[in-house]
């Protein structure tokens, strides 16, 4: 054991085994152990990221396809039939295909991109690097976490290629639609594969979450007290807790659903009558005593925390990036931390606001209204602090900064419509309309994508030792922010007018014909925005190999520990001993100095943080 270990006893307790192993085995690293079955948290993070990017392209493409249908319900696109065959006969998207597309778009983006792709990537890369740890608490479980995600991906992808198609009952898979194979093509084998894939996904995210929590609580370097952690780590910490406590409940709900589907139980099914497809009259199913609402409770007990599982990592990264790039300390560190904590608690107490009009007791609804609107308080604290961090800052407008500011803008716009929807009375009018689509896409979907983009641009130099192209980054940002508002802002008006979401073709309603041209505009903009995302993907992969090389270990002049590692850190992150931490990570523009890294001891005349 090296001398370094004597100076940092905490490190000894946690890393003695792994650390020695790595040094012994370094020369034996093969391609497979380095890039495929890797136990290095940085490589696992990149695996999550690249898998997430592939999923984002697939999920984004799905949205372009159904936008084609929504924008041009009467037009025929022969190319669709060429590519999708019977799913788009005559060049028009068939109803079954349309529902499969929206279901898969939701599933893929919510779980595979914005959960695994976002927190899988950045929790893996940043937690050990910013805490001063050589790796996760259990690198093996961490590797398993990725490979369970990979298996979940394979199962979900394979469901796209079966003859009855993938799950098509919406990403929330409400029974009885999802419980009965007779209900639709997508409720046949595709639905079973969906459940299996999600079960694997839950295992993956649990293994990941366990590791994140115990790494954060146990493997911090010397001097890194909890209140000296960067806000990114706090956000990942609360994200992991939310995941560990809520995903198992989803698994319970899905297991019961699997029983209902395949073994004849009636947990969710009761009094089902449907018309025989062969015209032999009505068929009455024997299932009795089930409750469809029960599934919704189990689903949304995960489903709502899931929103914050998606959002919190983006919030954490935005806090860090805004502070670094406005060269100012984060405004209200403890308030940021307290509001993260408040959001994490409230996340578990608001799930029924998704169920105001599905048969929930109205009295219960009023309690959930109160709790839901309470989220506005910590959210407003965060927005205030981001704005005051930027206020009179010496802002460097890197692509990462722009995306972080874009996140704040979207979070405000989308958050405000949340106040509408959180009221159960207004929700009677607005539920299941395009207003809801606008709300959650802006506040959670696009905002978190912006957080992810900000993180990728900002930490790309750490991940690959090269920069991404900034010009392409600026084009990416401006087209995406303008495009996002052009796509989702008009949907508020459609929703207020009562236009339902998830409908294939609204042209038979005279009241919605006024929105025909608007829907065309939205479709055209989504195609442009999608094309620009492909440009980002090009920039990403091109820069991995050909980007401008990083020549200084700390290109952004940042205080956090990840920039004290070599430009291309090996497994174990620091070549010598792990640095000791003496201060919080936000000493920017202090005592006439631009930045003071966490590793620098506090001076005699300096106020302590």
């Amino acid at each position: 054991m090296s001398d370094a270990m004597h100076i940092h006893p905490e490190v000894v307790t946690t890393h003695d085994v792994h650390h020695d192993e790595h040094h012994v085995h370094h020369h034996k690293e093969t391609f497979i152990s380095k890039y495929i079955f890797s136990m290095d948290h940085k490589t696992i993070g990149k695996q999550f990221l690249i898998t997430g990017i592939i999923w984002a392209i697939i999920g984004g493409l799905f949205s372009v396809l159904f936008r084609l249908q929504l924008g041009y319900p009467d037009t025929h696109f022969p190319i669709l039939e060429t590519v999708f065959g019977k799913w788009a006969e005559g060049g028009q998207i068939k109803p079954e295909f349309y529902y499969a597309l929206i279901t898969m778009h939701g599933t893929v983006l919510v779980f595979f991109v914005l959960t695994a792709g976002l927190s899988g990537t950045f929790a893996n890369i940043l937690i050990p690097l910013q805490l001063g740890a050589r790796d996760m608490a259990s690198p093996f479980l961490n590797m398993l976490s990725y490979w369970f995600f990979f298996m979940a991906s394979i199962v979900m992808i394979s469901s796209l290629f079966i003859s009855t198609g993938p799950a098509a009952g919406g990403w929330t898979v409400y029974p009885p639609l999802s419980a009965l194979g007779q209900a639709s093509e997508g409720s046949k084998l595709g639905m079973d594969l969906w459940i299996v894939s999600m079960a694997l996904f839950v295992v993956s995210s649990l293994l990941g979450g366990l590791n994140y929590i115990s790494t954060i609580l146990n493997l911090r370097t010397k001097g890194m007290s909890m209140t000296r952690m960067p806000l990114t780590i706090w956000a990942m910490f609360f994200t992991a807790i939310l995941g560990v406590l809520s995903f198992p409940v989803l698994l319970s709900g899905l297991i019961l659903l699997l029983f209902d589907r395949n073994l004849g139980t009636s947990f969710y099914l009761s009094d089902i009558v449907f018309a025989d497809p062969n015209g032999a009259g009505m068929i009455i199913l024997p299932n009795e005593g089930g409750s469809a609402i029960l599934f919704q409770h189990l689903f949304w007990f995960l489903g709502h925390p899931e929103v914050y599982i998606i959002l919190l990592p983006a919030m954490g990264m935005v806090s860090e990036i805004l502070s670094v790039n406005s060269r100012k300390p984060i405004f209200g560190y403890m308030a940021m931390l307290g509001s993260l904590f408040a959001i994490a608690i409230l996340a578990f107490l608001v799930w029924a606001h998704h169920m105001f009009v599905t048969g929930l007791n109205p009295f219960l609804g009023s309690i959930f209204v109160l709790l839901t609107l309470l989220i506005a308080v910590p959210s407003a604290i965060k927005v205030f602090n981001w704005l005051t961090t930027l206020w009179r800052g010496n802002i460097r407008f890197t692509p990462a900064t722009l995306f972080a500011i874009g996140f704040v803008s979207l979070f405000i716009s989308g958050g405000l419509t949340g106040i509408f929807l959180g009221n159960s009375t207004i929700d009677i009018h607005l539920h299941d309309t395009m207003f809801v689509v606008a709300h959650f896409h802006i506040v959670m979907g696009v905002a978190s994508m912006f957080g992810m983009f900000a993180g990728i641009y900002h930490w790309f130099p750490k991940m690959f030792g090269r920069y991404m192209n900034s010009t392409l980054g600026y084009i990416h940002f401006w087209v995406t922010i303008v495009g996002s508002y052009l796509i989702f802002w008009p949907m508020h008006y459609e929703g207020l007018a009562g236009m339902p979401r998830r409908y294939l073709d609204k042209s038979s309603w005279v009241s919605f014909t006024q929105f025909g041209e608007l829907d065309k505009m939205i479709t055209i903009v989504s195609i442009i925005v999608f094309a620009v995302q492909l440009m980002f993907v090009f920039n990403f992969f091109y820069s991995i190999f050909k980007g401008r090389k990083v020549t200084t270990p700390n290109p952004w002049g940042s205080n956090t520990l990840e920039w004290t590692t070599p430009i291309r850190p090996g497994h174990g992150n620091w070549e010598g001993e792990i640095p000791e931490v003496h201060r919080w990570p936000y000493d920017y523009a202090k005592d006439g100095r631009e930045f003071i890294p966490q590793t620098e001891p506090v001076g005699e005349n300096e106020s302590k943080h």
Partner: protein
Amino acid sequence: MSTVSIERQRKKIHPHKFTMWVAIGSMVMMFAGLTSAFIVKSNQAGWKTINIPGVFWISTAVIIASSITVQMALRSFKQREMNQYRFLTGLTLVLGAAFVVLQWIGFQQLWEQKITFRGSGAGQFLYVIFGLHAVHVLGGIIALIIMFIKAFAGKVKLYSSVPVEVMATYWHFVDILWLYLLIFFLIIG
């Protein structure tokens, strides 16, 4: 290594042990989800209660015994009495397997009482909840088998008691979880 650092080591919980505790938290949430689904359903029309077959009492005794043996195994490991450790690990393994078999017999007895998957009463929940618990015990058995083999294939001497402690913690958890589930079904089922 200096005495100071050893002192610090003792104070801090090993990250693997801590990970197990967090994992237990998530498993608790899973069964909390299922048992609260049970409570919600039990207030609705068409609910049917059941009588727990007596064999589940035997399995309760078996799993409690296995909890004691795993604790004794941990103690003998710490005292470096490896033969006793091997014997007690093996005994725990046998008791764990016996538990799963007894659960299976219990399921069969219920099935013979015409409590099948049809319906949505306590019986159907019992199959799901006890079944998932048995899956967790099976996971523990697999881990025990691995430790049992490692205890014999000992070219490398095992000194760290952490894996054994993690194992014992998990085993006690499935034991306590079983007691909770049994009492739950006795009172509400």
